Structures are given as C-alpha cells and as structure tokens.
C-alpha cells in the first residue's frame, strides 16, 4: 500500500503555517495514529484549533472523526495511540474522560448521555454534585442550574424531568452541563442530526455566542451548510487522514470545495467485475410509510418507492440516520416501526410482508446491519446458525436430521469459503468477515429471491470485503435481486447497477451507476436538506 499520508501533510497542510499559528492555538493534535485489530483508523492526523474559534470537522462516515474525538477526550487513553496532544500550550496525556473534562475539554455525543428519569438539575450535576460531605445542597444546585439554563437560553424549571422535554432542549441541557464544568473546548458530534431547523439555528447561534465569550468549539457535522454558517476553520478527514484544511475567513469556501476534498478518492479495482444482466423487475415497494417504533408521531419513512430487477444490485445511499435500516426492517416483516403503510410487490403481484415469516415466504431475506446483535446466535456453532432460518429444510416432521444439517453447513462453508476449524465451531470465535459469511449462508439457505444487505462489510477487513463483494456478484449472476445498503459510497458505486439516494426518510434521487459519482450523491443529499 502506498504511503499516501505524507503526501497530503506536505502538500495540503503546510507545516510552516501551523508553526506560525501555534501561539494562539488552544489545541494541537500532532501526528495522531490509532489502530484497531486489522484496521488503521487514524493515520498521522493533525488538528489545530485556535482559541475562541469554531472549528468544523467534516468527512464521510468512517473517515475517523469519532475516533479522533475519542482520542482527544481520553476514551482511548494515552498510550493506546501515537502522537501528541497539546492543550493550552502543555502536552496532555489523558488517562480517561474525567482527565480531559478536568481541564475543560467537554464532548457532547450524538447519542445524548442524559438520564431520562432524572431532572434537569440532577442531570447537570450528575457525578459533579454540589455537596458537602456527600450531602447535596439542592438550593445551590437549583440556583446554579437556573443561571446555566439562562446562559443557554433554555426556559425550563431545573426540576423538569429530562424525558418530558424535546431533543433540542435536551441538547441545550447537555451544553449547560458542559458550562457547569468550566468548559474551554466544547466538542459537538453531529449536534443537529435529530434537531429541526429552528432548534438547529438556535444551537448554532449559541455556539457563536460562546465564541464571543472566548470558548472554542469543535463542530462535527454532515450538514455542510451549517458548518459554513458558523465555522472559522474546517478540517477535512478522509480514510483516517487529514486531507485538507480550509480557512473560511481568508477565502470564500463553498460546499463544492468541501465535498471535493471529502470524497476525492480514486476507486481502483477494489470491486470484482460482475457479468449480470438485469432483466425484469422482481421486487417493488410502493408508497412505503413508516412511523417511529416508539414515538408514533414521528414520520420516519415518507412515500418511498423503489424496485429491483432480477440479477440487479441496487444501492441505497444516505447518511447515518437517513432511515435506510428502518426502511429495510419495516419491509422485512414489519420488524421495525409502526403505522406502516404501502405496498410490496413480487413479480408484479402484491405480497404479504406483514410478518417476518410471510416476508421470508415471499422470498425476501434481510441481512442485518449489526451481525453480532441481530444476525448470529454467538454461543451457537456454525451449523446451528446456518440452519436457523430454515429449520424445516433440515428436518422431517419437526425432527432435525443432524447429518443433513452438517452437510448443508459444509456446503456453504465451501461455497462461501468460511474459514473455520469445522462447522462445529462457535461463531463467537470467528472473524468479522467469516461471521458475515455465516449470516449470508443462513439467508441463502432460505432460498430467497431478494436479498437486502444492510452494511454487509462494516467492520471487516479489506480482504474479506473483496470476498463478500464476490459473493454479492455471484448472487446477482445467479438471478437474485440484491438491495445493498451501505454508508461507504465507493462501495455503493463499485457494486451497484443503480443507486437510490435516501435522506430524511425520503428517496431524494435515483440514478444509474454510470451517471453517479460521490459528489453527485453528496450534492443530492445536501440539496435535499434545503428543501
């Protein structure tokens, strides 16, 4: 593998410039590298945040943004990564989150870390109670909470229970909590992902106000228009490296400029050739609507229409939270959501997909996003997992034919090249790629016509990915229809015949792969935010 990291640092991240700015930088992360077994998540990443600025970090899913922030906040302690962190002019070696919070680096995650059944005041001072000898001074806590809420512009009583206020307000409580800890650098990871527009605007205005008070912020967001609204500087990550650094005050930056850096990656032959010739439409979904599984008033999937042909692979592109998994699961026997409406057609005829069994009978298989939680019985062996969805296929009058089960499992072991000591091996001990092959085997054994693959290569190494791609191609060539959901756009472009683009629960674009590009997909998504 060519060493691309050095290339980018030299040409696009001039070291001299950093030197001159170091004087007023509150945070300097230098040469940060972080590896997980089989994956190098961060490669020599540099990040410099000035005192009193809003610094945007953008990148595709998996570019390394969250990993970088976990390094910064001490979730990955000093010693588990390479490189240096300098904060307020001193080198810091955080052992845990408490360490980084202590000096004023506070991170607010996408999934809020509030306790739903406690009050605002209790949440703000959780773990940091105003107390003498262990006895909480509630008067002081409420008084202080009121001050903090005023600062973030939240008009609620300190005693209000968290789960009775909306997500936007909860976000503000998180920020108030950060303020209570004397924050110097506030990190917000996708803070507006689940906010409506007015809440988002209020939040961004608050960040600007903090800037005026000298508090620095790091804003991680997929919504480039928001980044452009408030950020002073933008750092762009791609494949775990810093690929670009843009000064929004010095030059006129637009979304195109950022997208170009975000996706500017060459696609080599990482995807095997396919010789399938899509023919008739096998499966079609019409006017599909789904409401949130818990909050019935949240309309998640809105009038989705799509179809897939025999021998075709269609991709569904979208950012995290676009509703792709929710859509797939709702189609697969209503395993997600409520108040589901719409029509599913197989070979042009309406089919009943109202339960998982009916969806399976109709010829649909759904390979879940999270194979460990939803795909495998980890304590069971390979053969037990392979036969799980089609026990009738290995039994007669409900009595399991054990030799037949082993023969079936061995067939798939060979066909899909599952590397294991035997089919008696527990699936918990398999590598991610081999686990995924077991899940695929399970669904292939049900004899489906349509396979929905949800992030089939997430968290598995490059070699195994290539094998999975080979399997997908073989399936398409054998006449199956494949719906591929992936957050990796190169994968979608490399594997699909046709791409649907989903955002905010709607299909916002559809294009043959020949016309598609990462930029075009990103543009379509960004444009749909504005509508």
């Amino acid at each position, binding site marked *: 593998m060519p060493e691309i990291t050095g290339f980018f640092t030299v040409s696009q991240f001039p070291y001299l410039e950093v030197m001159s700015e170091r004087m007023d930088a509150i945070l300097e992360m230098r040469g940060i590298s972080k590896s997980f077994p089989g994956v190098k998540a961060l490669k020599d990443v540099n990040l410099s945040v000035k005192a009193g600025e809003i610094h945007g970090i953008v990148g595709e899913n998996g570019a390394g943004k969250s990993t970088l922030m976990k390094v910064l906040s001490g979730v990955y302690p000093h010693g588990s990564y390479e490189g240096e962190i300098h904060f307020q002019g001193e080198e810091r070696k955080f052992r845990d989150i408490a360490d980084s919070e202590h000096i004023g680096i506070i991170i607010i995650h996408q999934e809020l870390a509030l306790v739903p059944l406690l009050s605002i005041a209790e949440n703000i001072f959780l773990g940091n109670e105003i107390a003498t000898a262990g006895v909480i001074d509630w008067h002081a806590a409420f008084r202080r909470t009121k001050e903090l809420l005023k600062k973030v512009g939240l008009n609620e009583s300190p005693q209000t229970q968290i789960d009775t206020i909306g997500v936007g307000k909860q976000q503000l409580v998180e920020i108030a909590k950060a303020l209570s800890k004397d924050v110097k650098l506030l990190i917000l990871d996708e803070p507006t992902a689940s906010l409506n527009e007015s809440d988002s605007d209020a939040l961004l205005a608050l960040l600007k106000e903090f800037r005026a008070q000298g508090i620095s912020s790091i804003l991680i967001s997929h919504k480039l228009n928001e980044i452009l609204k408030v950020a002073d500087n933008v750092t762009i990550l791609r494949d775990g490296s810093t690929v670009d650094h843009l000064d929004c005050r010095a030059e006129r930056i637009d979304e195109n400029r950022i997208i170009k850096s975000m996706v500017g990656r060459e696609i080599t032959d990482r995807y095997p050739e396919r010789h399938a010739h899509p023919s008739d439409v096998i499966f079609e979904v019409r006017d599909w609507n789904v409401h949130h599984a818990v909050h019935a008033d949240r309309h998640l999937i809105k009038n989705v229409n799509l179809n897939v042909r025999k021998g075709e692979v269609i991709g569904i592109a979208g950012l995290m939270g676009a509703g792709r998994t929710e859509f797939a699961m709702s189609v697969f026997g209503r395993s997600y959501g409520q108040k589901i409406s719409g029509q599913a057609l197989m070979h042009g005829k309406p089919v009943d997909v109202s339960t998982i069994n009916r969806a399976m009978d109709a010829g649909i298989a759904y390979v879940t996003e999270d194979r460990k*939680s939803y795909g495998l*019985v980890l304590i069971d062996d390979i053969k037990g997992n392979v036969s*799980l969805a089609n026990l009738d296929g290995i039994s007669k009058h409900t*009595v399991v034919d*054990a*030799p037949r089960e082993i*023969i079936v499992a061995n067939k798939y072991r060979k066909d899909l090249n599952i590397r294991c*000591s035997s089919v008696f091996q527990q699936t918990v001990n398999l590598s991610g790629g081999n686990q995924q092959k077991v899940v695929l085997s*399970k669904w292939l054994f049900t004899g489906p016509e349509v396979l929905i693959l949800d992030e089939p290569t997430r968290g598995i190494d490059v070699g195994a990915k290539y094998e999975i791609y080979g399997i997908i191609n073989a399936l398409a060539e054998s006449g199956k229809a494949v719906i591929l959901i992936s957050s990796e756009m190169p994968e979608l472009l490399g594997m699909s015949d046709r791409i649907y683009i989903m955002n905010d629960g709607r299909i916002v674009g559809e294009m043959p792969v020949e016309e598609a590009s990462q930029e075009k997909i990103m543009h379509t998504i960004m444009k749909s935010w504005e509508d």
Partner: protein
Amino acid sequence: MAQDSATIPTSGAPHVSLGTYIRHNIRDYALLLSLIVIMVFFEVATNGILFRPVNITNLVLQNSYIVIMALGMLLIIVAGHIDLSVGSIVAFVGALAGVLIVQEHWNFGLVFLFCIAFGAVAGAAQGFFVAYLKIPAFIVTLAGMLVFRGLSLYVLGGTSYGPFPTGFQLLANGFIPDFFGATFKWTSMLIGTAVAAIIIFFKIRERFNQQKHDLAEEPLPIFIGRNVLIAIGFLWLTYLLASSRGLPNVLVIMFALITLYAFVATNTTIGRRIYALGGNEKAARLSGIRTNRLTFYAFLNMGVLAALAGLVFTARLNSATPQAGLGFELDVIAACFIGGASPTGGVGKIIGAVIGAFIVGVMNNGMSILGVGIDLQQVIKGLVLLAAVCLDVYYKRKA
C-alpha cells in the same frame, strides 16, 4: 483463492485427539463425575445405607417431582426466563385433587385430567404476561407464586385432605407388577435390561449413521467407555430396585418424560428454536422464529409439568396440605443451574438438569441419613449451587 480451498478438509467433523475432546467437553463429564463422587461419599459416610435397595427406591420417589419439573424449568431457563410459581402450583393442584377426590368423590382419573388441564391454563396465563405483554418472568411468576399459594390455602381452608383412594396413590407409590412371584422382581429386571439394550442399540446406530457421513465427533474410546458405563449404571440401578420392590411406576413415567424432553430439546426444530431464542432473541426473531409464541408454550408446558408433579407429590404424601411444595421452585431452579444451564439463557441440557436434580436429591437424602440438621443442609446446598455456577463461569472463560 486457490490456497483457500485447500485449507478446507472434506470431512464434516474435526478429528480431534482424545485429550482435546475431553477438555472441550469437560463440563459435561465433570457433572456426571460430581454425582458419582457425591454418591460414593455418602455411601461411605452412611456406612452403606445410601445404596441399599430401599433407599434407592426412596431416592427415586423423593426426587421424581423435582426431576419432572426440572425438565420444564430447563426449557424456560434456556429460553432466558425463570418460573418461581411451580411450588405453589404443586400445592394448588394438590389442593384441587384433595377437594375433588376426597370431599367431592370425583373419579380420580377425571381429576387427573382436570388438574393437568388446570396446570396448562395456569402456565398459559403466566406465559401470556411474559411473552405478549413483555412483563419480566421474575415478576409474573413471583405474583403467580403468591396467588397460587394463597388459593391453595383458601381451597383447603387451613386443613389437610386425605387419605386418597388406593388407585390414585399408585401414581407415586405403585410398582410395576411382577409376574414371577420370586422375591427378586424379575419382571422389573427384564424391563430394565431391555431398555438398556435399546438405548445402547440406538447409540450404536447413531454412531454408524454419523460414520457413514464421516461426521462422528466423539472419539471411539470415549464412545465405548461412556456407553459401557451407562449400561452398567442402568443395570445396576435396575438390579437394586428389583431386589427391593421393583420399578416404581413414577420412575417409568419419569424415564419416559426425560427421554421425550431430551429428544425434543436436541432433535426437533422446536427445541432448536428455544435454544436460539435464549441465545439471541433478536437474531432468532429476525430469522423468522415466532419468539413470543415459543415463550408462551414454554410456560404452558411448565404449568403442565408442575401439575403432574403436584399430583405425584400429593399421591406420595397421600394427603393434600397447604404447605405442600414449599420451596420446590428453588430446588428445581438449583437443579437446572447445577446441571449447567446458563442464567442468561441459551445454554443447558435436559440430562444436565436431571443429574443436577439428583445431585440435590442425593445430598438431601444423604445428609438426612447422617442426621445433618435442616439448617446446615440449606447452607451446604446453597454453597454447592454457588460452586457449580462458579465452575461454569470458569470453564466458559477458559473456552
């Protein structure tokens, strides 16, 4: 790609060495070994009273209801739940039988069916709350435990009902009739021998079947050793029983049930689905398994077995008392956990639960013979349960 296909052996099963095989299956052997060690210990400690034919007969009779309930409880625990109400259902079924047979003079056959049906309804009711309303089984069955205990007190009005007609008593205290008239019960001995022969026949047939497909996993020496031990143990037990009063009826019922449940658990689709449900409910559900219905049936089944156990217990006591079945749920649950079931579900064997029940049973029996007080007995039983589960966790971590 080429070198990959070479790494896949053509055979189905791995040909592992003897040592490796034992290490991988040590938990199963350790369990059986513990039972043998405990039995030998008490045999020595009680100066040979434990293995006297009369005492062996007693052991079987005393533990039959625990074993019967352990079969259902294992399925519930494997499915990832728990049932605390079984002891109270035993009491209530006893109370029902007492009132209907002794006071109302119903035909006891009819009452038998009525009580079993009641057990099914009671189990189904609890199963409904657990499976469909998603109330934790601990809460539902804790409520059931109080409700059925209270109901049995109410039905009995604080007194006991008895005695029962002889026909009903035969359920627990009867023996297989002997046709030879000698002191030694030859009929029982012959039946026992025949069953042992059938078991060995099926084991060998299974082995040949596996070999035909090259799927035999168990090394031959272990296969032979294990089956010879099973045969000897079986024949010896039969011999002891035959030298006393013959095979108890309840042993026949118990044996039939153990065979049936072991078969269902390991060789049928419903058994496989229960294990998958306990192993990963979400994955099972997304694989098209109707997990709710399965949970419901597991509780229904438990109710039926608890009712049967209640009838056996009442027949054995020849009296329906409000205190019947007190603490049974704990013995039954302990039997399953000692037998290797996992508290988090998905793991456990019918045979394990049966051996677990007998470990508890032999300890109860042995300590009673030794005159160990009920207080100390509970302490020791508690520690054994804890040790067994610790051992399980230890093996799991090693594996």
